[in-house]
């Protein structure tokens, strides 16, 4: 019991910290691409502290608060199910479908909170976010189907284990296709260009986020950090072979090593998203839907069918 609690706290702290570092990396790399100096890497932490330490906060009612809390809670829940090296708690229950759903739930909480504020831009942003979700769901679904059918299991941990012996997923053609589609989907999950339609700054002034300030926004920053960590972790687990190091004698070293390997893979996933995001303008929502329903869907469906054969 104590051990589980300890693990949970460690995972949570690690995920939050690395997530914030990821946010900082995103800002720095984007700045470098713009030939700017960019903020220090710990900038997101400063932002969060600042937001949480605001002296006055507003609320639009119970749902407005609960939606935010629910979003963070659901993100923590999702994090617990994803295998993190050898120290994850509920990895035995880390079911592909379950995690895919759990990674979408926080958005629902944010939508509820945003809509309860009654701001038309929040409504517009939620509409765009939902249509983006609708658009990405098809390739995402096919990618998951491809994985499940290739490995014959839904357990993420077993998939990771299988990759330790049989090599990474992306070395097989069907899963390579699935990975490509999933990576395009990840672009929209991170909310980066060209699919940052839901939070179009200057167009609908951050959409769902428009009414959040002070500690609400601070909690959302933490949630975003953990979500970044979780999504990249999920991708590197199912497609990039995860990390289960057993080379060293002491379990501590093994854990650290596997965490390090995972970190490298996660950053690789993140950098792709940043590069794509930094050089593309924004789609309109129907363009995004048409795009996702065309190429990624075809790629992922091909992958799924090949995996099923």
């Amino acid at each position, binding site marked *: 019991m104590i051990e589980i609690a300890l693990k949970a706290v460690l995972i949570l702290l690690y995920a939050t910290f690395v997530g914030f570092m990821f946010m900082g990396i995103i800002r720095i790399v984007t700045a470098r691409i713009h030939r700017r100096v960019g903020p220090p890497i710990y*900038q997101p932490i400063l932002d969060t502290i*600042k*937001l949480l330490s605001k002296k*006055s906060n507003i609320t639009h009612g119970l749902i407005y608060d609960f939606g935010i809390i629910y979003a963070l809670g659901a993100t923590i829940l999702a994090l617990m199910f994803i295998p993190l090296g050898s120290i994850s708690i509920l990895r035995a229950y880390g079911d592909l479908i379950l995690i895919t759903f759990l990674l979408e739930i926080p958005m629902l909480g944010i939508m509820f909170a945003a809509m309860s504020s009654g701001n038309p831009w929040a409504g517009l942003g939620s509409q765009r976010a939902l249509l983006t979700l609708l658009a990405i769901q098809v390739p995402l679904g096919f990618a998951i189907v491809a994985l499940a059918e290739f490995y014959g299991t839904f357990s993420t941990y077993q998939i990771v284990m299988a990759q330790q012996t049989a090599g990474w997923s992306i070395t097989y053609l069907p899963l390579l296709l699935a990975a490509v589609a999933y990576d395009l989907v990840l672009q929209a999950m991170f909310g980066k260009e060209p699919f940052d339609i839901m939070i179009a700054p200057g167009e609908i*002034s951050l959409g769902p986020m428009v009414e959040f*300030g002070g500690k609400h926004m601070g909690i959302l920053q933490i949630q975003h950090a953990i979500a970044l960590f979780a999504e990249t972790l999920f991708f590197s687990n199912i497609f990039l072979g995860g990390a289960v190091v057993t080379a060293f004698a002491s379990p501590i070293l093994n854990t650290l090593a596997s965490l390090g390997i995972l970190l490298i893979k996660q950053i690789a996933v993140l950098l792709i998203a940043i590069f794509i995001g930094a050089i593309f303008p924004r789609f309109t929502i129907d363009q995004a839907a048409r795009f996702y329903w065309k190429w990624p869907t075809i790629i992922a469906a091909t992958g799924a069918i090949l995996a099923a054969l």
Partner: protein
Amino acid sequence: MVDWRLFEPLFEFARKRSLWIVSFCTGCGGIEMPPLMTSRYDLERFGMMPNPAPRMADLFLITGYVTPKTLKRIIITYELQPDPKYVMAHGSCPLNGGVYWDAYNAIKHIDKYIPVDVIIAGCMPRPEAVMDGINKIMEMIENGTADSWKRYKENYEWYKKNQDELFGEGWREREARRWIPWLMERKKGEE
């Protein structure tokens, strides 16, 4: 509740190093913002970032002349921001009317209507000047003299009196209702 006074220096540092700007470009100063944000003078070094939504913004830049119509929006937007919040005015127009000193439709003293922490002289101040002003406001936040939001709370009656003298009593409700008759009978004229 936890006693947070212990952490106050950390909070001040965070506030100083992550000023989010509400991008409400009123006048010609708006065009001085892009060079500040982009690769020449990169404001993001100081953790500053333009931010469309005032709810999460700290620093309100009033860039250039202000008309009564704009001032209404500025006041409403300013009151949406959570405390602590800071205001920085660019150029001589908000200070004293500047070249619009005798224009019937430009505000002469911005600080009669909302409190201002830093005013940058010049018409229009160059980016360097704006950066200087930003440094100024940063050290003011550090030594706690950037207290315009407190002043606005304390002297709210005075500010409200000035606003009402300029716009007339109940201007918020009037402004909100202004277009409604025309929105309702929009169809009327287009037979």
